[in-house]
């Protein structure tokens, strides 16, 4: 009985997990499948397979403009947040300074605040200051909520950095600037890239904060939200599916290559 229950226990977990993965992937599969739907106005009922949505993705009013807007916002906000966040991450690990705990708290709070509060707060501030909502206010908002995530990601990398490598640079008469450019920065780069990708993903998919601060400026999620009332065109599914495939290919390739690297290192060691 004990052997049986242990056997069952092991397989039950496998079966459950496979079903759980299938469950998580259902809406993704649905979105991709319906990007090939030969739909007219509303993309709800399956009407046959077509590639037209993919080949003429910009035909649908506004989809491509919204997508381009999201790319611009994502790139600019990512650059700003990555620079500001990386600087803070280095300071947090490498320096002792007054108000250190308050600084940590200030970085933590935006992650612990509901998006609707962040969005309404910024909108109230822009309203009071008489700032016109548009692309600039969206970029300012996205940079704000990305900074904390950059700090968390880069900080882990700074903390795992071996200080001996930088010491070696100084011992070899490199100036502090040279040590940073030739030693510290290249070692931090994987962490910085990971942080930038996370920022871009957060910015690209943000709807709630954007909705409060965009005015007439339309990002891709905002386009989908507005279109939801009258039916989403299949072209929106095309863009979401393409972004999904690119992201997955990117992540899986980096995982497989780092696994291969680990194996090589293990063999050498």
């Amino acid at each position, binding site marked *: 009985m004990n052997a049986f229950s242990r056997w069952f226990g092991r397989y039950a977990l*496998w079966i*459950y*997990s496979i079903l759980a*993965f299938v469950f*998580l992937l*259902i*809406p*993704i599969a649905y*979105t991709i499948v319906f990007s090939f739907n030969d739909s007219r106005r509303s993309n*709800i009922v399956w009407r046959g397979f077509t590639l037209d949505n993919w080949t003429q993705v910009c035909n649908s009013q506004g989809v491509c403009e919204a997508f381009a807007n999201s790319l611009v916002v994502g790139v600019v906000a990512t650059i700003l947040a990555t620079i*500001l966040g990386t*600087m*803070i991450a*280095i*300071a*947090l690990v*490498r*320096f002792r*300074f007054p108000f250190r*705990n308050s600084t*940590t*708290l*200030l970085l*933590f709070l935006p992650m*612990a*605040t*509901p*998006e*609707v*509060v*962040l969005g*309404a*707060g910024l909108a*109230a501030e822009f309203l009071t200051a008489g700032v016109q909502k548009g692309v600039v206010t969206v970029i*300012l908002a996205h*940079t704000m909520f990305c*900074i904390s*995530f950059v*700090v*968390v*990601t880069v900080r*882990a990398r700074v*903390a795992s950095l071996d200080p001996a490598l930088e*010491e070696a640079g100084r011992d070899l008469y490199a100036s502090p600037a040279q040590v940073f450019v030739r030693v510290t920065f290249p070692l931090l780069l994987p962490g910085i890239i990971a942080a930038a990708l*996370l920022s871009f*993903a957060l910015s690209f*998919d943000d709807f*709630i904060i954007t909705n409060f601060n965009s005015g007439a400026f339309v990002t*891709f*999620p905002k386009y*989908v*939200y507005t279109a*939801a009332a009258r039916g989403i065109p299949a072209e929106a599914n095309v863009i*979401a599916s393409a*972004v*999904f495939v690119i992201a997955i290919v990117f*992540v*899986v390739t980096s*995982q497989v290559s780092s*696994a291969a690297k680990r194996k090589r290192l293990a063999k050498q060691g």
Partner: protein
Amino acid sequence: MAFGAFGGTIAAPAEPAVRKRSRVALFLLLPGILYLALFFLAPLLSLVITSFQAPVEFGDIGQYQTAFRWENYTTVIGTYAPHILRSFVFAATATVAALLFSFPLAYFIGVTLRRFPLAQALALTLVIAPFFISFLLRTLAWKQLLSDESWFVSALHGLQLLPPGSHVTGTAFSVIFGLTYNFIPFMTLPIYTSLEKLDLRYVEAGGDLYASPASTFFRITVPLAAPGIISGALLTFIPAAGDYINASRDFLGGTDTAMIGNVIEANFLVLQNYPAAAALSLILMVAILIPVSVYVVRSGTDDLL
């Protein structure tokens, strides 16, 4: 570390050569801190000021002046008490559902797949895969999949498992279902991080000491996974409580599923009742800050990021 658990693997910080050139530290910190002061702290202050504002006499809709109207708070609580309550019930239910869904999955990835690093990494990718497809589109996908015309719902009707004439979408169930689905990765990843480090010898010791599997599970495995469960619960509850996509009528919600996020959006962007929206936002913020500050006090500020 708990919230940081989400950002990736964190190595134990090797005590670095701490330099005391505070001018460099200031140069590194100041731009980012000023940015957050300007676009995170100042907006919270704006919310406080706005929440007490009074309408301009004989003014247009959306015109307010600085005042000290406490009544704004009592008014919104009186008007929107059901929405506030509903947000917390929905978010709490979704958090529990996400925990029940995630724990076995996180155990599978963190413990069962432990000897296969590549399979483990790919399984984690599957968990976060929903984040790579638009939040709004994946929610709309569920709306279609749970609509009356879908084969799933017609099958339920055919088997008479659903009362005739009833719907799945537009109900409290579908909103909680959507909240659960959308925030599952926030629950699974921190629990995985805790379980991945779980020393199986403790679990074996439980068995050796004649504890039943259930008592080993609840007295050894769960307590060791507690940090992950707590941060997972916060990471799920916070966005779920403030969400207004799932509960929106164009998505999974109906006429009587509006949550606090929906009424904040409606008051701010449609009715231009900024003081009401600001007061509701601050009520939500304070309600969230209570569990968060318990968490901060217990884990200490050093481990926050």
